[in-house]
């Protein structure tokens, strides 16, 4: 998301502004200071400041009406000093933040590995055979639409406290994305390249290594990205109900202790953690995996195909050519009509 975002940032953001609707032909060149104040960077900087102000104001107003609300409305200083304590390793919780996130990451990693392994096999089968597809399709959709709360609560009740429940939740939330992505990847495999490989007598192993894998790669990557984002959300819920440690358990710890600053501080740590992973790990990895493909950012292309907003809009956005909304609509790509579209074009 970061790459496309910043790229779009440099472009003229107000080309299609509603100003065009309310006939306003061209803004006159304004003073440079005014232009800086109007720029999107200024807005970006203003956002946290405004948030802080609103926060302080809300506390002031609410505590003047209900004096006892001080308990549940922490001040920003409380929250940030809590976060600082956490980051320096000083905490009242049983484990510090690094151990906690390490435990959660380990579970997430195990769950994702299982989901990728099973999902790839099923996805390959579904892409290659119509029968296998008919066999699994409805159940994949059903699992996809199930709220992670249901898996989390169920796994915590069925498997008890410990590692198994959260890991099973990660597998169940992540696997439909892997299956759907791999299936689309197989369906979009370049048949002409296979034909050519056969015509030139390329060995089977080489075909798999140089044709099938590279063509599946972007799809697998998109799958991993979604499985990570959604698996993380599922894992946290599962740990709240059925963990003895880990990130979800710790936020529940602060919740049960009725420390609002702890809950909000930990929530901010969650946001930071997710953003770090998205921006650094996945953008780096996608740069590394697709270095052989210089001209397109493959992950964007694939993701756009999956969660383009609708059949009608998929074509419209293809023209504007940015994958931003595709990545931002990320959490729920399942019925992205873009997927339906590719499916239909495949069948037809």
């Amino acid at each position, binding site marked *: 998301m970061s790459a496309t975002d910043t790229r779009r940032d440099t472009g003229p953001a107000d080309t299609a502004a509603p100003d065009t*609707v309310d006939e306003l032909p061209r803004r006159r060149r304004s003073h440079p200071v005014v232009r800086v104040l109007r720029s999107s960077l200024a807005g970006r900087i203003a956002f946290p400041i*405004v948030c802080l102000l609103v926060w302080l104001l809300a506390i002031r107003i609410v505590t003047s009406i209900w004096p006892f609300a001080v308990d549940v409305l922490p001040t920003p200083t409380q929250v940030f000093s809590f976060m600082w304590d956490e980051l320096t390793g000083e905490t009242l919780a049983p484990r510090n933040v690094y151990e906690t996130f390490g435990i959660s990451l380990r579970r997430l990693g195990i769950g994702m590995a299982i989901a990728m392994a099973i999902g790839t096999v099923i996805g390959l089968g579904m892409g290659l055979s119509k029968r296998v597809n008919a066999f699994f399709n409805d159940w994949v959709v059903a699992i996809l639409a199930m709220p992670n709360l249901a898996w989390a609560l169920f796994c915590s009740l069925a498997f008890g406290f410990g590692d198994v429940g959260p890991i099973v939740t990660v597998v169940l939330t992540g696997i439909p994305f892997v299956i759907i992505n791999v299936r689309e990847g197989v369906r979009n495999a370049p048949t002409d390249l296979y034909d050519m490989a056969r015509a030139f007598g390329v060995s089977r192993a080489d075909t798999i290594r140089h044709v099938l894998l590279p063509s599946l790669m972007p799809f697998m990557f998109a799958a991993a990205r979604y499985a990570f984002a959604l698996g993380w959300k599922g894992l946290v819920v599962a740990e709240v109900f059925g963990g003895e440690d880990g990130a979800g358990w710790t936020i529940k710890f602060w919740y049960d202790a009725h420390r609002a600053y702890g809950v909000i501080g930990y929530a901010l740590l969650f946001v930071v953690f997710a953003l770090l992973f998205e921006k650094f790990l996945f953008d780096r990895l996608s740069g590394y995996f697709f270095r052989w493909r210089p001209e397109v950012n493959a992950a964007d292309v694939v993701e756009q195909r999956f969660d383009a907003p609708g059949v009608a809009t998929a074509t419209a956005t293809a023209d504007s050519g940015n994958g931003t909304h595709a990545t931002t609509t990320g959490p729920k790509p399942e019925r992205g009509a873009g997927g339906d579209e590719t499916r239909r074009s495949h069948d037809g």
Partner: protein
Amino acid sequence: MATAVASPPTSAPPRTSEEERVRAARRRDRINAVAWRLAGYAFFLGLWEFASGRLMDERLLPGPVDVLRTFGELWASGKVPGAFADTLTRIGIGFAIAFVVGAAIGILMQNRLLNGFFRDAVTIGVTTPGLIWALITAIIFGNRPWGPLIAIVLTTFALISVNVAEGIKALPKDLIDMAKSFGVGVVRRNRQIVIPHLAPYIFTGVRFGFSIAWKVTVLTEVFSSSSGIGFEMRTASQLFRLPEFLTWILAFYVFALLLEKVVLEVIERRFFAWRDTIKS
């Protein structure tokens, strides 16, 4: 298709036979697909039924038959419609607010300054798990009705504003310019060009948003509510009644899927009936 075009028109009988063969093959394919799909249902339901009581304790994994029976009992007890109604009103109010807020932000984001201002808000709204909002609103508002509503708004507004913003960005400028130069009034221009163009984006936002909204609603009800599906789920899980728990969540899941996939889709198809004529 290709053979039909290639063959001369005089050879009518073989072509019909070929067409028939193609049709027969297609019919066979369809029957095959249906059969395999049914096999899938049988396999998974059978696996579930088999696993309960054999692979896992029956109290830990009640089978589909158990769940159906429990649903019958719950329905007879009369708790179901009330819980559904509570949750649905919550979703309805929260989602309506989220839609208004999200659309307003999507429109405001066309300004460069406000775009920068709201961009991080939208990113945070999209990436933050609903659980976090549920916990924060629960700890701040207790079980006042505002908590779940605010949680719904915070988790769903971003999807709608993203879609609205994308829609506005992709407005057909040339059409609007042409309408302007031919002296079409503002009202008519918006009515005939802008709104039909934005509608699919808005519908997508609504569908995505709804699919998230109902999940978040149930989640917040688990923490901070004394009525609704989430509350019933929490009660059942605290009493360790897994059949009841599974029944509540599965019943609401089926209901929400019905709303999402059938009702919204029918409305959407109605709304875009004019599009098909263009396509064909």
